[in-house]
């Protein structure tokens, strides 16, 4: 399935939840916030959302800034 993750075109397997994507990518859930098709998804819903064709996912975290 073709999806856009952090602005980059990627492919993910069918039946991939947001939780699985985060774990596959090796991110620490506590550090990050996920936006799915421009909607922020609370962590407890990551396991319920299956990623679909052409979905757009942003994974962000805090860094240094002034």
């Amino acid at each position: 399935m073709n999806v856009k993750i952090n602005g980059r075109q990627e492919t993910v397997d069918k039946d991939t939840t947001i939780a699985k994507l985060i774990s596959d990518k090796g991110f620490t859930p506590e550090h990050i916030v996920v936006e799915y098709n421009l909607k922020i998804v609370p962590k407890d819903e990551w396991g319920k959302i299956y990623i679909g064709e052409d979905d757009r996912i942003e994974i962000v975290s805090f860094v240094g800034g002034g």
Partner: protein
Amino acid sequence: MDDILRMGGRDIENRLFIGTGKFSGYKVMKEALEASGADVVTVALRRVDSGSDTEDILKYIPEKCILVPNTSGARDAEEAVRIARLAKAAGCGNWVKIEIIRDNKYLLPDNLETVKATEILAKEDFIILPYMSPDLSMARRLVDAGAAAIMPLGSPIGSNRGIKTKELVEILINEIKLPIIVDAGLGVPSSACECMEMGCAAVLVNTAIAIAEDPVDMAKAFSAAVRAGRLAHLAGVPRSTSDGRPSSPLTGFLRDR
């Protein structure tokens, strides 16, 4: 001295706000934050790259600090609002510094888009600190839009040029009831001190501390300068004059009467 800055329902004792960008590492950043005694600290929000799950910066920010995510990277109000919402969802409170920049050379903020973003986010219970070019009309619009403070720039971000906007900032201090917090460009502690003497409520410093040879001592120096400037302001800074005024009595000279 009981001199507390009250903003967004919080009591802020230390009027030096510190930005967390450009430090050589999180450890030295943490030491600098602790040494300064800062109560308010800014962070940014960025995409994380696959396979490079870096350490959590929040672990290196003292617990007592109010965390203020900025919206850096936003080019218009819509992007700033999106970043602010993501930052709030991270669960670190509802403060946000709105920073909307379309100009990549001078990094000067877009005041109009900043007002628009402030209007939207104020309705969502954010405590909003808008970064702006010092302009009285725009500052008034930001007040009406629901800002918690006004953050005029001293000089371009990271330029270390000091308070080049002094006279415009003084107008804001005189006319705007909200705290005026100079943000950006303060390169040495004396510039921070000058802002506080003028009557700014606080200053935000990042680059000058982060890239100093010894960021910990520089953080202490800025903190001391901010305290000194504040104390001088409260003491009442005397007016300057162009002519000389003797400080010794003009009587009793050792000469014939």
